[in-house]
C-alpha cells in the first residue's frame, strides 16, 4: 500500500519532471513498492532526435545512499559511450540538495550535461578510467594483486611468469581476501621486470606464482567492460600451451590453488595496467582436443580454450605517483636523503609523517630502547614490546610505505667519534663527507652538545634542529648554520620553560617532560607544513617558534 507521504512525493516528482523543458515526452511514471520508475524522452536543440531513458528513483531520494545517486537513468543502447555502465546506467554524480524539486532539476540537468559532453561531442577523458570489472569470489575468497610500474617495457604478445608475495590476509566485507603484491615479472630467458618497491618488499619470499600475457589493448568490450568469458580473450596458442604445462606441473601438489593470470595492456603512452583472471589448478580454462589428420586421430593433443566465465580478481596499481597521488610533500623533500637524529616523540612523528608524505630515503640514529611508557606519545606500539627504537621504527615505516628505504646509523658515530674529534681538521673533513651524504638532517636529539658540534661543522646538508619546551607549549625550529645561538637564547632567555613540573616515573629518577601525543603531534605537523613550504620555495628558511595563542597556533618567524 502506498503511504500518504509516498503519494505526495510521487506527485511532486511527476509534476516537477513534467515542467523540465528538455523532457520532451513523459511516456510513463509509476509508483512501485520500492521505487518510482518511468520512461521519458529528452530533446533539445543540439540533439538530432529525442533520446529515450528509463529511470528509477529509490526511497532515499533526494538523499544519496552509499555515496551514489538514488536516481538512475538507463539506456542500454548507449553503452559504447563514456560513463555508461554495462546495464546502460548513465553514471552521474550531482550536488547535494535536500529539496526534492531542486534535486530533480539538478539530476536532469546532469543528464543533459552528460548527453552534450559524451553523446553529442563524444568527449574522451584525459585520465584513464578503469575497466568495469565484476570482482569474483573463488570458494568464498577474494584475491587482490597490487603492482607498480616496472623498470622495463613490455612488448605485444609477451608471456612469462609473475612472482608474488602475500601481503596480508584480511576481510573484504563478508568474505575473506588474500592480498598479494607483484615482486617482478619474469620473461624468457630469465629477464626480470621488477616492480619499484623498496628492497624490504622485494626481498620477501615468493608465495605464489602466476602467468602473464601482455597485449596492446584492454581485455574489454568498448575498451570499458571487461570480457566475461575466456573465449573473448582470444588467447594465442603459446599462452594456452603454457597454461597447460603449468597446470600439469603443479596439478597434484597444488590442486585447487588459485593461480592468477595477468593480462597487461597500455593505458597511455607510458603506463600499463593489469587485469587479473583467477584460475584454479585442476580447472584451468583449457581443454585438450585430439589432433586429426585426414579425419583420423594422430594421438597428439591440441590445447584450446574452454569457454567458461572469467573470475576476475582485484588489481591495484600502487606505483609511487598513485600511492602518494592524494597528497605528498614537495619533490625537494621526497627526493632528499634524510637523516633523523633522535627518534623519540618528535623524531618518530617526523619519520612517519615524512614516510606518509612520500619521502623515500630516511635513515635514523638513536641509542634508546623503547619501553611501554613511550607508546602514548610517539610512533611506537605496545605490541612490539621492549625494543630498540630504531628497529621498531624502521619496521613501522616499511609497514606504511613500500617506497621508503631506511637504515640506522651507528650510535657511537655521534656519541663518541664526532664529539671527541670534531676539532680535528682531518676528522672534520671525514665527518663532513659522511654527513653530506644526506641532503637534510633533522636533529631531534635535544642534545645541546651535539647541537653545538654540528653547528661548528661546515656542512652542505640542510640541518634542521627541532625541540620542545615542557608541556609542549612551544616548538623551536632552527636552520643551519643559525642554530646554536638561536636555540640557546630561546630556551635560556625568551621562552618560559617550566622545568619544575616534570613527569617522574616510578622506580627510576629520570624526569621527563609532560605532553600528550596530541600536544606534540599538533606542533610537529605545523612545523613540517612550514618546512615543506620552505623547501618548495614558498617561504624563506627563517628560524621559527610555534606557540599556542588563545587556542590558535601561531608561527613566529625570526
Amino acid at each position, binding site marked *: 500500500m502506498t503511504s500518504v507521504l509516498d503519494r505526495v512525493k510521487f506527485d511532486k516528482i511527476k509534476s516537477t519532471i513534467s515542467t523540465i523543458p528538455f523532457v520532451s515526452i513523459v511516456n510513463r511514471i509509476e509508483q512501485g513498492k520500492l521505487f518510482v520508475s518511468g520512461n521519458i524522452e529528452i530533446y533539445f536543440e543540439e540533439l538530432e532526435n529525442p533520446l529515450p531513458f528509463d529511470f528509477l528513483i529509490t526511497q532515499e531520494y533526494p538523499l544519496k545512499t552509499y555515496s551514489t545517486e538514488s536516481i538512475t537513468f538507463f539506456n542500454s543502447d548507449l553503452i559504447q559511450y563514456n560513463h555508461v555502465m554495462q546495464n546502460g546506467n548513465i553514471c552521474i554524480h550531482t550536488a547535494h540538495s535536500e529539496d526534492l524539486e531542486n534535486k530533480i532539476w539538478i539530476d536532469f540537468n546532469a543528464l543533459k550535461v552528460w548527453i552534450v559532453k559524451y553523446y553529442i561531442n563524444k568527449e574522451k577523458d584525459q585520465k584513464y578510467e578503469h575497466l568495469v570489472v565484476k570482482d569474483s569470489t573463488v570458494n568464498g575468497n577474494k584475491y587482490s594483486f597490487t603492482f607498480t610500474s616496472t623498470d622495463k617495457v613490455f612488448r605485444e604478445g609477451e608471456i612469462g611468469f609473475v612472482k608474488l608475495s602475500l601481503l596480508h590476509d584480511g576481510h573484504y566485507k563478508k568474505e575473506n581476501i588474500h592480498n598479494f603484491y607483484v615482486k617482478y615479472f619474469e620473461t624468457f630467458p630469465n629477464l626480470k621486470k621488477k616492480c619499484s618497491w623498496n628492497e624490504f618488499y622485494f626481498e620477501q619470499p615468493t608465495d605464489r606464482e602466476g602467468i602473464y600475457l601482455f597485449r596492446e589493448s584492454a581485455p574489454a568490450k568498448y575498451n570499458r567492460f571487461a570480457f566475461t568469458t575466456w573465449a573473448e580473450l582470444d588467447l594465442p596458442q603459446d599462452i594456452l600451451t603454457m597454461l597447460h604445462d603449468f597446470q600439469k606441473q603443479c596439478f597434484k601438489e597444488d590442486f585447487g590453488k588459485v593461480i592468477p593470470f595477468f593480462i597487461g595492456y597500455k593505458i597511455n603512452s607510458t603506463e600499463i595496467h593489469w587485469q587479473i583472471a583467477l584460475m584454479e589448478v585442476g580447472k584451468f580454462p583449457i581443454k585438450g582436443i585430439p589432433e586429426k589428420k585426414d579425419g583420423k586421430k594422430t594421438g597428439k593433443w591440441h590445447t584450446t580454450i574452454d569457454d567458461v566465465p572469467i573470475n576476475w580478481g582485484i588489481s591495484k596499481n600502487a606505483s609511487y605517483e598513485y600511492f602518494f597521488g592524494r597528497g605528498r610533500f614537495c619533490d625537494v623533500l621526497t627526493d632528499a636523503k634524510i637523516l633523523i637524529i*633522535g627518534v*623519540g*616523540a*618528535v*623524531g618518530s612523528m617526523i619519520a612517519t609523517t615524512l614516510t606518509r608524505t612520500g619521502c623515500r630515503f630516511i635513515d635514523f640514529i638513536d641509542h634508546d630502547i623503547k619501553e611501554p611508557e613511550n607508546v602514548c606519545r610517539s610512533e611506537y606500539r605496545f605490541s612490539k614490546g621492549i625494543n630498540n627504537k630504531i628497529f621498531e621504527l624502521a619496521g613501522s615505516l616499511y609497514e606504511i610505505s613500500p617506497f621508503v628505504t631506511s637504515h640506522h646509523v651507528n650510535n657511537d658515530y655521534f656519541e663518541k667519534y664526532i664529539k671527541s674529534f670534531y676539532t680535528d681538521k682531518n676528522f672534520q673533513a671525514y665527518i663532513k663527507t659522511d654527513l653530506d651524504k644526506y641532503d637534510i638532517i633533522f636533529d*631531534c*636529539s*635535544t642534545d*645541546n652538545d651535539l647541537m653545538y658540534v654540528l653547528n661548528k661543522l661546515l656542512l652542505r646538508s640542510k640541518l634542521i634542529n*627541532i*625541540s*620542545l*619546551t*615542557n608541556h*609542549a607549549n612551544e616548538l*623551536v625550529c632552527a636552520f643551519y*648554520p*643559525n642554530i646554536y*645561538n*638561536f*636555540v*640557546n*637564547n*630561546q*630556551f*635560556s*632567555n*625568551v621562552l618560559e*620553560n617550566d*622545568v619544575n613540573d*616534570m613527569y617522574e616515573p616510578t622506580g627510576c629518577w629520570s*624526569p*621527563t*617532560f609532560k*605532553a600528550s601525543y596530541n600536544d606534540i603531534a599538533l606542533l610537529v605537523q605545523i612545523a613540517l607544513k612550514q618546512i615543506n613550504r620552505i623547501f618548495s620555495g614558498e617561504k*624563506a628558511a*627563517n628560524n621559527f617558534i610555534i606557540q599556542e595563542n588563545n587556542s590558535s597556533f601561531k608561527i*613566529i*618567524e*625570526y
Partner: protein
Amino acid sequence: MAVNKREHLDNVLETHRMKHIDNLVQKFKEKRGEIKEALEENYTSNIYSPLNSGSFGKHTAINIKFDLDIVVPFKRYSFGTIEEMYNAVYDFLYEKYDKTDLADVRKQKVSIGVLFKADEDGDLISIDIVPGREISENSYLESRDLNIYFNKDTWGFNKGTYTKTNIQSQIETIKSKEDERKIIRLLKIWKNTNSEPYKSFLLELFTLKAFDKSTITGNLWEKLEGVLIYIKDNVIREEFTLKDPGNTSNDLMKNLTSWERQNLSNKMQFIIDRITENSENIKTYFPINKKFDTTESYELKGSSGLSVPKDDQRFG
C-alpha cells in the same frame, strides 16, 4: 626583567671592538705592510701608492669578521688589459707566497686572497689585494677612479668584465659619521652571527641612506630601529636605489631579486616585532661576544649543580 636594549647594544658593540684583538690586528697590519712594500718594489713606477680599504679602512670592522684589504692602483698603460693586470698581480703573489709555501694564494671575485700559514700562535692571517687601473692616463691622483676586474660572475657582473669604482670616495662617505658606523657595525654583527646572506656593503649603504633621507634619532636602540624600519619600508619599493658612492651607475638594488627584497623586508619586520614582543630576543639578533664580555658572572645559570633539568632543557 626586560633587557635594557640601549645598554645591551652598547655592550654588543663594546665586546665586538677590534681593541680586544689588538695583537692579532697588529699581525694583520704587519703582513699588509709587507705585501704593500713587495708590490711597490716590484711594480715601481707602474703603480700609485697602494691604499688600505675594507672594513678596517672604513672603521666598521668587528672582531668576529674583518678585512684588511689593499687596493693597488695601476697606471693606465702598465698592462694591455685589465685582465692581464689581475693575472699578473696573481702570478706575482703566487710566486712570492704560494710557491715558497708561506701562504695559499687564490683568485677571488675581484681580489686576490693571500692566506698565510698559521703562525706560532695558530693565528691565520689573510689579506685581500684588489688590483685596479686608472681610467685614463694620469687621472687617478685627481679623480681616484679605478677600473676593477671581475674574476667571477658576481654582484650582477660577468666574469671577464670590469667596472669603475672609487675606494677613496667610499671611505670618505663614511668618514666622521660615528652614529652611522655604530649601526653598520651592529648590522654586520647581525649578518655574521645570524648567517645572513646580505653583503656588508649593501647594509652599509642602506644605513647611510637611512640617516640621510630619514629622521634617525634617539638612543642606540632607537637609531637602530629607525634604520631597520627604513630598510623594511624601502627595500621593497621598486624605484628605490642604492648607489655605490664610488660609481653612481652601480645600483646595488639591481642585484636583489624581488624575492630577496621581500625577504629582507620581512627580516627587518621580524627583528622589530620579536624584540618589541620580548626584549630578550635582542640577544638572538645582536648577541654579545662572550669572549670579551666582562659583565657575565660565572654562576651556573638555572642549575644548583644537581642533575635536575635546567630551565634551558630542551625536550622532544
